[in-house]
């Protein structure tokens, strides 16, 4: 900082003291090296997966049950390579994933304004707050029969089920996020001249972001679950084959390796979106706010 030689004024003395205090008090932020991070974060789940695979193989080798009930990991791998060579692996995944993404985005577009209204308008909160809470605990599979009757077996029905599953958790996440905004930020925003839209945009929403993100993450999980339920139940040549339909087809064909592969693929896609999309965003937001404990 400023050198003490240029102007020997009392103010300069003060800036020297201040620079010293700043240096003494500053919080040291250190990032964990990438190798250590990998060892701490990636290794344990990898070991977990290997353990499960090992147990699975062991159970298979000991012939605990008939092999058509429990195929070996290699059989499931065989189903995967079959899909790969048939060239349908990615189209199956993509059919479901694309539906899931579109449905999720629509749920965000609908759930966000609902959440804002419920959080900020008292009568709205009193009226539909409890309903939203209740809907969140209703399994969205329960909507499938109703949606089929209302909309028929088509894409709209799938999206309806996704929305009914995901909108409540996204809205509730935003409500929780807004409720947790410290009143001090709102007061500070008001003194800075933020009100109405500018308050929502510059103060309220950024302050509520961690809670909102948690809601989005849960909203994705609900979207994905609802979609799989809908795909399992609804069968129509117009719909194409997604993961849920693939799974159901394998069941009808009594192919246990295919059924297990279907389950594993559904699980993998759900986890991958969480790990590749939501977790990095969440970590970034929390770290930038100093809310993430480092060095652990």
């Amino acid at each position, binding site marked *: 900082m400023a050198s003490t030689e240029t102007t020997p004024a009392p103010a300069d003395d003060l800036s020297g003291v201040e620079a010293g205090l700043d240096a003494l008090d500053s919080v040291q932020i250190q990032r964990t090296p990438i190798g250590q991070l990998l060892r701490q974060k990636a290794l344990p789940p990898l070991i977990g997966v290997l353990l499960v695979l090992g147990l699975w193989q062991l159970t298979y080798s000991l012939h605990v049950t008939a092999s058509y009930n429990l195929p070996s990991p290699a059989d499931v791998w065989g189903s995967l390579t079959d899909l790969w060579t048939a060239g349908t692996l990615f189209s199956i995944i993509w059919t479901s994933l694309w539906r899931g993404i579109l449905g999720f985005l629509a749920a965000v577009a609908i759930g966000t304004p609902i959440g804002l209204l419920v959080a900020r308008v008292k009568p709205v909160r009193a009226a539909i707050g409890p309903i939203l809470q209740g809907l969140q605990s209703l399994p969205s599979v329960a909507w499938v029969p109703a949606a089929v009757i209302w909309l028929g077996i088509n894409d709209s029905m799938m999206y309806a089920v996704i929305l009914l599953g995901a909108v409540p958790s996204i809205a509730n996440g935003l409500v929780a996020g807004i409720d947790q905004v410290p009143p001090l930020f709102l007061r500070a925003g008001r003194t800075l001249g933020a009100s109405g839209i500018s308050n929502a945009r*510059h103060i309220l929403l950024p302050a509520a972001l961690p809670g909102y993100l948690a809601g989005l993450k849960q909203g994705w999980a609900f979207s994905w679950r609802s979609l799989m339920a809908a795909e399992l139940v609804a069968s129509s040549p117009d719909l194409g084959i997604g993961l849920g339909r693939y799974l159901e087809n394998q069941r009808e064909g009594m192919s246990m390796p295919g059924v297990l592969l279907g389950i594993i693929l559904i699980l993998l896609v759900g986890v991958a979106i969480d790990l590749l999309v939501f977790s990095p965003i969440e970590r970034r937001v929390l770290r*930038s706010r100093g809310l993430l404990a480092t060095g652990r």
Partner: protein
Amino acid sequence: MSTALTTSKNAPVDESPTGAPAVRISHVHKSFGRPGTATPVLDDITLDVAPGEFVCLLGASGCGKSTLLNLIAGLDKPTAGEIEVPSGRPALMFQEHALFPWLTAGKNIELALRLNGVARPERRAEAERLLELVRLGGSYGKRVHELSGGMRQRVAMARALAQGSRVLLMDEPFAALDAITRDVLHDEITRIWAERQLTVVFVTHNVREAVRLAQRVVLLSSRPGRVAREWQIDLPQPRRIESAGVADLSVEITEELRGEIRRHGQH
């Protein structure tokens, strides 16, 4: 709330006709709760603050000093009486820094500039200038949690100044800091007040702090808050909080403050 914010950033606004106060508080009453059962917090407060004046509001807890500051800031309305701040919405600093953790130090200041209507191209340079003013040049990109308590309050000060108001309200802004840092920040606020010719209304319960900083100390009584007594502090600035002049006056004012508090022990 007044939205009359014509204050421009670079050219200081011409003061209202000489003699007109920067803050005029006339016969202000404030009570919370329903009429009838409401407990009065402020009772008939009348106080003028001249442009460029540094006034400390001093009082024990329950004197309503923070309530009064909120009223001046326009965050709340008086039950009766009037408050005028002719230069528009005043800036307000809290005991907690109240910086937004999702923004960097510089962006916090830029948000204040933006909400004050400063055009985008000028914001960055102005924010850097304000950070220089509080001697935090180079901290533009720092996150709030990376700054020490004293640095946070200085960024908060810069953000308050970014509102472009000539009136700065401070609600015990240094109360949570350690003594060394507080001492340094006293020097800073005195310097910035003089440099920027600000009008400052500073709330504190620390008598020495009041005497160290203020040109005028206003003692408020508690429950309800009334103006109990005023002192003109003529000691030359910059003062030292440990100097004999500050200490002597502090003794006198503390006696008076204790007298006010004692009254509440006798029914």
